């Protein structure tokens, strides 16, 4: 039965880790905006074209 001591320790550690992760995520502002990420995740990461690396012709807007 002594194994329960160990298990309790592990379970507390695990739960503590989750608490820590939650607090960290909150500090990063993950819960501030709960809509935009749901849209953002659907964007495709298009491969960047290599032409991009060339110096762009600079154009002043306006």
């Amino acid at each position, binding site marked *: 039965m002594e194994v329960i*001591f160990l298990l*309790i320790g592990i379970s*507390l550690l695990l739960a503590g880790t989750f608490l820590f992760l939650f607090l960290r995520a909150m500090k990063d502002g993950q819960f*501030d905006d709960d809509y935009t990420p749901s*849209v953002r995740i659907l*964007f495709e990461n298009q491969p960047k074209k290599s032409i991009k690396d060339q110096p762009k012709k600079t154009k002043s807007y306006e």
Partner: protein
Amino acid sequence: MKQIFPTQTHAKCYHCGENCELESVSFDNKKFCCQGCKLVYEVLAENDLCEYYQLETSPGKSQKERSKLKNRFDYLDDPEVSRKLLDFQNDQESHITFYIPLIHCASCIWLLENLFQINSAILGSRVDFVKKKAQIKFLHDKISLKEVVSLLSTLGYEPKINLSDLDHNSKSTIDRRILTKLGVAGFCFGNMMLFSMPEYFSEAELLGEGFKGLFDYLNVVLSLPIVFYAASDYYLSAWNAVRQRKMNMDVPIVLGIIAFFFYSLWEIFSQGNAGYMDSLGGLLFFLLLGKVYQQKTFATLEFDRDYKAYFPIAVTRMAKEMEEVIPLVKLQVGDVVLVRDEELIPADSLLLSEFANIDYSFVTGEEVPVPKRKGELIYAGGRQKGDAVLLTIQKAPSQSYLTDLWNNESFEKSNKRLLEPLANRISGVFTWTVLTIAVVAFVFWIGKDVSIAVKAFTTVLIVACPCALSMSTPFTLGNTLRIFGKGKFYLKNASVVERLALVDTLVFDKTGTLTDPAIASIEYFGVALSAESKSIIKGMVERSTHPLSNRINLWLGKVDPIKLGKVQEIKGAGILAEYKDQEFRLGSKDFTGSNEQILSKVGNHVFFSLEGIALGQFHIQSGLREGAPEVVKSLSCDFELHVLSGDQAHEKVTLGQQLSNEIRFNFNQSPVDKLNYLKELNSMGKNTMMLGDGLNDSGALQESQVGIAITDRVSHFSPASDAILDVESFDKIPSFLAFAKDSRLIIKTSFGLSFLYNILGLSLAVQGLLSPVFCAILMPLSSISVVVFTTLATNYMGIRKGLIYQNKQ
């Protein structure tokens, strides 16, 4: 007979989706409605960002009306301005957050987050869709703030920068403390529940004594963060209440927490029993959950805006025949500024141009633009309608008429009679009753058994801890807030609901609230007006400042006035003018000597006559907002109604006919008059609600018990208020008020429900029979059932009032 027209299919603009009319532009095999839209496409195509158009069809906004002034962002070069706007700056990077009202779809998010592909000096950007904000990080050595803003503007996403953006130097950080507390409480509560489980089942003995002790000690350890951290707000609030010799809901909560904690400590350490630590954890967890739920805020809305959010950040100054755009704060007395169509007058100033047409509706409530002549004083806050005008500044922007008004003491402090929440009033009685019961139980048992006496005393306090009681208010109000929000009625916080339920007197602003200046109608009956007579009328009405003249002036539009011989305005009658030795009269029926029939009953009538012969009549109707008569009618049974208007009294009779004769009308009300009017009503012990839309109502909105700002674009400027109502929902005002009353009733009913639980618990506690298991069941059960009851009841009432639609389309 049906006539068949050749169906003409208009091509839709690839960028904004509007119909392309004659001047459409073709580019890249695509049609554009204007050069602006084409330009945006060009920039995107050049940078391989055409995915913008694949995410949504025609995601852009028409660029037809965009300002073409190149120098309008010059003020951003001012180091002081940019320093105040930036969130963060180091040697290389600058971070700035813009408010971009145009953000409306997935394409917007995508494009704004791909800005770095257009300009490599932009490191990245992040959009908050709900708040319509974008944070942009850029290298300030390679791209200036001004260039970032003009890039955004080129793409059609011009950020809105107001004077108030310069103010908050300390960027407000979101308060996440309550969430942290909830997280900690949830962690502790969950684990305590697990460790308490064996206690609830007889199998506990299987584990042996050593484990039981360990679990109890672990519970004590886990209860420490709850008692000393998560519950800290309650101590503070209870302490404040006690110090002011008042009672609030937090006082019995704190009594309960103390009893829970110390009694459990005593049980665990001296008796070897389990104690009630898990129930304590549950209590705090549910309480905090209620608090978070109640704190629903509408992130896009700002309820505390002052005039600074209305003012532009920059003005165009004329210096040595050259235009330059400077920050408003640098404007000095004597400067000459250029104000274009639809721009705001930044400070009290003298008109240098010949004519100006100033719309003061937002400031004074007068709905017709006022013509001004060279040399006249123009107050800040008006909006120029028409051609650009030149002004010399007479007073610094911070000392103008409008800001003076704002800094008036009565405007500043919000001296609302603080309405005591229902829960606080009950808790006073509640706390004393519970204490009495506890003492009586203690006295009863002390002669027989001291340990039972102590147990009875503390368990009474524990079980009476108003968990369910204090939860009914936040959950009811929180849900009410959400239902209101669905009906486009946004409250500042939950306490407004309770105040709304007690309102008995409604005060309406006229212009912009009951009436809509955009639908004011003018009709002319009689002999058709020739171009000459139009010019004559124009010449007459231009000389007059009477609102009806102004309106006819507006109706005539761009007609050149004829030079008239003699023009005389007779107050309260009309205008008399001579032209080619003939006498023209414009005014009331008696004044013109007209014997024409008045053709319609409602509205104002202006007659036009030549040498005593009637030529025709104008019918001018103030445009009542759609549904306004019905709303007023249904409200007039239950509420006392008042109307305040900055306008003159000429519409009093017709408004009375159209709305209700029980309304008390007050015209010619200055903003301060309105404020005093509300003060007077309040001092008569009435519970007032003020509905208004402009800066001129802001004092009254502050003074009333519930101030509601009406606006057609919710995210745009509206004066400081307790609630913002979308114009669309104007006709639902009676339902909103009735629903607020319902939710108060629901709170009362759920109080009754939780009292039942308390009586049940107390009857066991006074007998000294309360056990940890029973407590652990009763606590969550009572809380959850109260929450379920209030949620279902508010939703049911919301459906019945037509505020929630069951079928979403």
